[in-house]
C-alpha cells in the first residue's frame, strides 16, 4: 500500500452535488431531544471505495469502514461510494482505541452505530452519531452486550476514560437508554483538519474546489516532514 493511498481526502460538503448536500445538510442547525440547537458538520472525509474504507486505519485497531456501516435506514445515495464521514470521527476512534485497551478485548461497532447522516431514519433529533462522534458498541470480545450487568460494566469503563465521554444508562427507552449496546458519546465535536482552508462562503465554488488531502498522522507524517526539512525556517 502506498503512502498516498492512506492520505484521506477532506471535502467541504458545500461543494458536493445538490443531492448529497441536501442529505448531509452541512452547517444546518438541528435540535436535540431537549430542544438545544447544534450546527451540523461541514468538513468530511471522502472515502472513494470499499477497498479504501477497509484499508485506511484511523488508529491501530479501528478502520474507517467500522464507522460507515449502515443499513437501508440510511439514505440510499449515502449507502454507496464515495462515502462521507465527518472529520471528527478521528477523535472518536482515538477514544475507542483507549476503550478497547481498558476492556482488554476487541470492540465492535454495530451497523447504524457509527456515523448516521441527518437523513438516516434514526436521526429524528440531533445525536452525536450525526457528527461522527458516537458509537454503539454491540460486542466486546466474545460478549454480546445484551444484559444489564454487561452493559453497566462497560458503561463504567467508558466513562472512566474521560469526562468527555458520556454513555446511555441501561434501560428500554429508545434514545434515553440502551439495552443491546454501549453508547459511547463524545458530544457535538466539529473537526476542521489543518490541511483545508476554511471559507465562509456556503455556496459551491465551481472554479475553486475546496478540498485537501490530510497528511498522514503519527510517525509516518513526522518522517515525511523530517525528510523534507531544509532547516531554513
Amino acid at each position, binding site marked *: 500500500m502506498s503512502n498516498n493511498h492512506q492520505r484521506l481526502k477532506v471535502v467541504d460538503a458545500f461543494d458536493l452535488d445538490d443531492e448529497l448536500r441536501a442529505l448531509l445538510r452541512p452547517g444546518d442547525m438541528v435540535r436535540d431531544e431537549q430542544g438545544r440547537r447544534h450546527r451540523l458538520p461541514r468538513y468530511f472525509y471522502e472515502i472513494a471505495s470499499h477497498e479504501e474504507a477497509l484499508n485506511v486505519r484511523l488508529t491501530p485497531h479501528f478502520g474507517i469502514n467500522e464507522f460507515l*456501516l*449502515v*443499513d*437501508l*435506514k440510511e439514505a440510499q445515495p449515502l*449507502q454507496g461510494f464515495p462515502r462521507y464521514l465527518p472529520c471528527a470521527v478521528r477523535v472518536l476512534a482515538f477514544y475507542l482505541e483507549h476503550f478497547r485497551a481498558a476492556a482488554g478485548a476487541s470492540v*465492535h461497532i*454495530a*451497523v*447504524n*452505530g457509527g456515523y448516521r447522516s441527518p437523513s438516516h431514519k434514526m436521526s429524528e433529533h440531533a445525536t452525536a452519531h450525526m457528527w461522527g462522534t458516537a458509537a454503539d458498541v*454491540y*460486542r466486546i470480545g466474545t460478549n*454480546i452486550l*445484551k444484559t444489564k450487568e454487561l452493559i453497566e460494566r462497560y458503561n463504567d469503563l467508558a466513562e472512566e476514560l474521560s469526562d468527555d465521554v458520556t454513555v446511555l444508562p441501561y434501560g*428500554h427507552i*429508545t434514545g434515553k437508554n440502551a*439495552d*443491546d449496546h454501549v453508547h459511547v458519546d463524545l458530544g457535538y465535536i466539529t473537526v476542521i483538519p489543518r490541511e483545508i482552508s476554511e471559507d465562509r462562503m456556503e455556496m459551491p465554488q465551481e472554479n475553486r474546489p475546496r478540498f485537501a488531502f490530510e497528511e498522514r498522522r503519527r510517525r509516518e507524517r513526522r518522517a515525511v516532514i523530517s525528510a523534507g526539512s531544509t532547516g531554513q525556517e
Partner: protein
Amino acid sequence: MTVAEKVPIAAPSDSVATSEVSLYRNVLQLKKEHDLEELGIAFYDSETTIQWSYSGDHYFHAASTMKLAVLLGVMREVARGDLTLDAPVHIRNRFTSIVNREPFMLDLARDADPDVYGHLGKTLSVRELAYWMITKSSNLATNLLVDVVGIANVQQALDELDIDGVRILRGVEDQAAFNAGLNNEVTANGLLKLLRTIADRKAPCSEEMLNIMLKQQYRSGIPAGLPKAARVAHKTGNISTVNHDAGIILLDGREPYVLVVLTQFPAETGRGTAVADVSRDIFNTLSQLTYEQ
C-alpha cells in the same frame, strides 16, 4: 364442505361426486384418528380445475404461515421500487410490541436460525432474510422484515390482491399482544387464495417467491404425503397447539395444485402426522381423477 367449483368436462360427474364423498369420509376419519380439535383444508387443482374445502373459512392461529404474507409484503415493496432485495438490514434483536410500544427481544434459543442471529450487529440482505424467514422459518428474520416493510404494507399487499382470510396484525413472539388476544389468523381458503396468486404469477415477484418457497427445509407436512419426485413450494407453521402447511405442489406431467391444511389439537396430543395424511389423501384423490380423465 364446499361443492366442487368446476367439474372437469372429461371426467364423469359421478366420479367427481364419488371422490368428494370418499374424501369427505376420509377427512372425518383422519380428524378423529388424530384427535384434532379443528381441521381446515382447501385445495385448488389447475389440472382438473376442482376447488374443494373443508371448514375453509374457519380462522386458526396463523403460526408461521403468516410469513407468506410478510413475503408478499416485501415483494410488493420490491416490485414498486421502494425496496431492493440487495438492501442491507441491520440484524438486531429488539422489537416493539403493538400493544404497549414496549420493546421485546426474541428468545433466540427457541429460534432455529443461527444463520440469522449469528449475524447480530451486522447486516443481511432483504433477499437473505426472506430466504431464512421461509426456508427455516426464522422468527428473527421475520420480525426484521416486518420492521422494514411495516405491517400496514403487508396488509395492503393482501388487500390489493383481494385476499381475505389472512389477518396480519404483528410480527412474531410479541407476548404482550398474544396475552391481549391479538394474533395473526388465517383460514384455509385465505391461504389458498394467497398461494394461487403466486402459482398463477399474479402476485408481485411471484417467480422469486416460488423459488424461495421451493427451498423449504421442513418437509414433514405436505411433502411427506407425496411421491418423492414431487416438488413443493410451501410454508409450514406450528406452535404448541397448531400445525399447518400450505403449498403449491408441482408434479411432472400435470398442472400444479395448491393445498392448505390447518390443524389444531389439544396441547397434550402433539402434532402427529395429520397434515401429511391429509396431503396423501388429496394426492390419491386427484391422481385418480386425473387418471380417469
